[in-house]
């Protein structure tokens, strides 16, 4: 059975793959989580998916932009993220 760390690594990789496929466009966080829930088996909980996103953000693999008018952030992959795949 996969350990939690293996699952985290797999989940983070999926985040990077989804964002890489967006080809430079920003993906709203809710769409990103929806896609992770469809692509990762078993589907991650909301907090698990958010934890993968935050980890990648704080380590510079993805970058988020938040609208000045509020709302959830939108994400894109960084060069470091592309190199990690």
């Amino acid at each position, binding site marked *: 059975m996969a350990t939690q760390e293996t699952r985290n690594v797999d989940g983070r990789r999926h985040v990077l793959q*989804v964002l890489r*496929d*967006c*080809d430079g*466009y*920003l*993906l*709203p966080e809710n*769409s990103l989580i*929806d*896609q992770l*829930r*469809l*692509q990762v*088996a078993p589907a991650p909980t909301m907090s698990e998916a958010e934890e993968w996103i935050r980890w990648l953000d704080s380590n510079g693999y993805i970058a988020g932009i938040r609208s000045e008018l509020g709302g959830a952030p939108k994400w894109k992959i960084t060069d470091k993220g592309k190199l990690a795949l």
Partner: protein
Amino acid sequence: MRKPRSDSKLMNLPEEQKAMLCDWLLSGVPYHQVRVLVKKEFSVSTSLAALSGFYETFCSAELIARRRRAVSTADEIAKEVESKPGRFDAATIDALKQKAFELSVNPGANPKDVKSLFMLVLKSRDQDLSERNIELAREKFEFDAAKAALAVLPELRKIATDRSLTDDDKLRQARLKLFGDLPE
């Protein structure tokens, strides 16, 4: 005769029904509800395991294809918008591209929003055409005015040098010579 397995029944659905099934699964309808829908709409009995197998085989690929389509839709809109230099500034072009992408990637996007975005781009094209028509009409007017002025040049000179006329009178008379009486 053995009954066909329920997973092979799903794999053998017509393309249109497979696409519909993909849509249900990708838009987050739970398996147990999809099972009911499949029975009702396609008259096919299936199992949760068969739906899971179908998902793994078809939906993951469809999800990736959908992201690619979203990128290409956004790129198409950007191409259309960028073909009108000066119509939109760079920040607006970026915002339009991003909006097109978000609408295309979101299976729950309201088709009206997608339509509005395309209409905005098309409206800008119409505006270009009407501006061009105004420009052509102005060019024609300038040409006609020059032609009329040449035809009555001696009279215009006479009006211009007539010291008994005020500036306003001179303008009125010159206009009359060039274009005739004002329409009622």
